[in-house]
């Protein structure tokens, strides 16, 4: 098969699945619906692998597959083709998407088997995969934007999948609208880039990116990058637009795993990586990205500490991990960020699915306070979850360790980084370790607090097979990007495949000094030590029934409440943005539209009516008076003529 067909199949297979399941939306058979959807995504996955293999066979200099289907929009100079590019970056992305996607589809079959709208669910899921592929494959900003909005739409549909629950529907809306804010900024960023470079094609844009970075804040490039980053904050749940992601947990858990952990939320990172030459030309924008990323990493992690909903914890964890990615991007470590994106996709998907398994076992119970000791009921889930836990912790050897450490190291080492960023990163890592351990402890370990009426049970094979696969990936996924200093001490000196693979696509950080192994070791050691310490404390706190947490929360009551209330950001937005706008709208409607404009028009009509009424008094029906006026006019005209 040639590339065009492959790409077409890759893209269209999920779309076909969407249509098939969409037209059977009334059917309840979860096996049929799931089989169709999973097959379709699996076909995509196969295509992805084939394409990826094709890619590897190519020469490194022009390792890219470009497929153009038709001209989408052409007006004047603006030209956007419906074309797709598969290169080092998107090649990895499609593998992640379709691979993890098919696993999650598989998982969903059992998970959703009670649900009546299972066909609808799978059709949405397929549509999401299609849009996500559109996003990552698009060879220009417009196609990317199509996917960008499309995934938002699917996210909206899937979050609000159980729409009869008002709060879930509201969560979907919130997600979409928050994304929309980012999208609007994205659009303007796109406009600026187009007006600046006259193209929106990635290849051309990256080629045209100025080699000398500009340090002007008001430079169009900087502004464009910042705007694109705002778009990314929306999609990737960064400060200040991260608020939708925790709420998005209202959707079915596999959805959270696929969309809100593994794929969609990483779109922002992907976008920046995709445009890295442009961003490199605007270091100020990257500085903002790094700061925001670090801040998000810390703040989200701190909120995660006190959450009791298993999915919320994971959600904040996702936000926090995404912050790491942006931190990495911000300091110029695009490869590391993408690496973390991949490993995160593995272990976070794993953990979400694991949590799904737990929730499934607990009959839709999500509160970790009501769990505990599930290890013995759910052995496979526990084991796999633990793998994820270790990975996210950054336990040496696990995938998260390599990627996270790389980012931390770069944030310190890169000329664009700063020790403060490293500190923030480590702080985040420490807190991550704490709450993750807390999650493990409260869920799986310790004594059972499960309510009497719930009888947890291990999930069926269709659910744990994906878990196992992902767990393996979480463990070994990082081995393709082993840093030099570690590979040096390892037998066989495994090469850093990742870095090598991505190298041509990533702009070099200007002025990057050679790595000092001693320094690197030290920092690594510090962070790992702190992380282990933190998880140890957490284990002590929560592993056994201890009084310590409650004491601590009593002592730091204010801080605790603030954390529980998630820094009251939602409330702040509600008060500062939503309410004023609704208030403004209502007042505009009632006071401008109804009371002013309409009143003006009524005033006009009343004026005419009044004038008519006044004139009507003259026209009182007294015929003789009319005649008199006529005579008067006659006399006046006559005398005027005569006197003239």
């Amino acid at each position: 098969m040639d590339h065009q067909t492959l790409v077409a199949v890759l893209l269209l297979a999920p779309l076909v699945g969407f249509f098939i399941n969409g037209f059977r939306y009334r059917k309840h058979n979860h096996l049929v619906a799931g089989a169709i959807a999973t097959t379709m995504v699996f076909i995509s996955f196969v295509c992805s692998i084939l394409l990826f293999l094709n890619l590897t066979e190519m020469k490194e200099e022009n390792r890219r597959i470009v497929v153009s289907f038709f001209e989408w929009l052409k007006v004047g100079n603006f030209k956007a083709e419906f074309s797709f590019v598969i290169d080092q970056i998107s090649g990895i992305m499609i593998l992640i998407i379709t691979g993890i996607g098919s696993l999650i589809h598989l998982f969903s079959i059992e998970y959703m088997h009670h649900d009546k709208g299972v066909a609808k669910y799978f059709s949405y899921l397929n549509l999401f995969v299609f849009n996500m592929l559109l996003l990552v494959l698009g060879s220009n900003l417009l196609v990317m934007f199509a996917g960008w909005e499309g995934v938002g739409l699917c996210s909206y549909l899937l979050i609000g999948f159980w729409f009869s629950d008002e709060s879930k529907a509201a969560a979907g809306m919130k997600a979409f609208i928050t994304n929309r804010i980012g999208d609007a900024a994205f659009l303007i960023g796109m406009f600026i880039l187009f007006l600046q470079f006259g193209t929106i094609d990635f290849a051309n844009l990256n080629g045209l990116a100025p080699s000398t970075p500009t340090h002007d804040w008001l430079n169009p490039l900087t502004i464009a990058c910042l705007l694109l980053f705002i778009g990314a904050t929306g999609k990737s749940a960064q400060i200040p637009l991260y608020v939708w992601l925790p709420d998005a947990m209202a959707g079915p858990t596999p959805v959270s795993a696929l969309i809100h952990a593994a794929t969609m939320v990483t779109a922002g990172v992907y976008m920046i990586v995709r445009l890295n030459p442009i961003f490199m030309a605007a270091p100020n924008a990257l500085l903002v990205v790094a700061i925001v990323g670090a801040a998000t990493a810390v703040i989200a992690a701190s909120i995660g500490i006190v959450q009791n909903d298993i999915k919320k914890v994971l959600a904040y964890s996702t936000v926090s991990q995404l912050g790491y990615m942006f931190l990495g991007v911000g300091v110029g470590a695009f490869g590391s960020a993408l690496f973390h994106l991949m490993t995160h996709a593995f272990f976070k998907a794993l953990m979400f699915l694991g949590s799904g398994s737990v929730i499934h076992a607990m009959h839709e119970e999500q509160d970790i306070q009501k769990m505990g000791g599930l290890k013995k009921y759910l052995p496979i889930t526990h084991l796999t979850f633990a793998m994820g836990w270790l990975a996210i912790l950054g336990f040496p050897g696990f995938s998260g360790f390599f990627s996270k450490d790389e980012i931390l190291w770069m944030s310190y080492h890169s000329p664009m980084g700063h020790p403060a960023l490293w500190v923030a990163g480590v702080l985040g890592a420490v807190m991550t370790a704490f709450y993750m351990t807390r999650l493990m402890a409260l869920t799986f370990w310790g004594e059972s607090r499960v309510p009497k009426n719930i009888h947890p049970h291990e999930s069926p094979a269709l659910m744990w097979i994906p878990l196992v696969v992902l767990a393996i990936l979480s463990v070994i996924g990082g081995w393709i990007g082993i840093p030099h200093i570690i590979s040096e001490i390892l037998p066989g000196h495994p090469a850093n495949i990742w870095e090598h693979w991505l190298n041509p696509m990533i702009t070099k950080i200007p002025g990057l000094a050679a790595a000092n192994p001693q320094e690197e070791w030290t920092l690594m050691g510090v962070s790992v030590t702190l992380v282990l310490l933190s998880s140890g404390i957490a284990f002590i706190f929560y592993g056994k029934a201890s009084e310590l947490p409650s004491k601590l929360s009593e002592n730091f009551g204010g801080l605790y409440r603030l954390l529980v209330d998630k820094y009251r950001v939602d409330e702040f937005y509600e008060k500062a943005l939503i309410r004023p706008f609704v208030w403004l709208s209502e007042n505009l409607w009632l006071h401008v539209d109804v009371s002013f404009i309409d009143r003006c028009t009524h005033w006009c009509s009343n004026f005419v009516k009044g004038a008519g009424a006044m004139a009507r008094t003259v026209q009182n029906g007294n015929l003789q008076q009319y005649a008199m006026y006529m005579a008067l006019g006659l006399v006046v005209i006559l005398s005027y003529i005569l006197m003239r």
Partner: protein
Amino acid sequence: MTTDAFLFWFLALVTFISALGVVVFANPIFSALSLVMTMVTVAALFATLNAFFLAGVQLIVYAGAVMVLFVMVLMLFDLHKEKKAFTQGAFSGSVKLLLGGLLAGLIVGAVSMSKELYKAISDQAVTNSATGIESTKALGQLLFTQYIFSFEVLGILLLVIAIGVVALARSKGGTHVK
């Protein structure tokens, strides 16, 4: 004083008196009869102006038909002498009187002062005066050539009015009856 002059002044006097009668008679019947008189004298004045056909038509149409209608209606309504024949209001009445007087005065004054008009037209007047028969013929020819359209329109108007009047007259009790 020639016969023409005598005839004119006599007719003018009668016309004036009868016209005044139309306005001042409190009994509408007398007003109507005065108006008939005015019509007849105006017809006679037409005759003095060589418009014999018009004089005849004036008699037939006005005196013979229109005024008969008036008189008949008046008689049918059984209207006697009115106590208040004129509208009330001394002020508006005097204003109206003044207006009427002013109008007449202005026109009469203007006409009597405009010697040029009189001269310019009257010079060619006598030479051009047509006899009755000729003027009738000319009238007919004009009416049926140059003014044929107006003539037809008038015909349609009359038809419409005839129908409308019948409808109006047959309606019982005017517009306010449900």
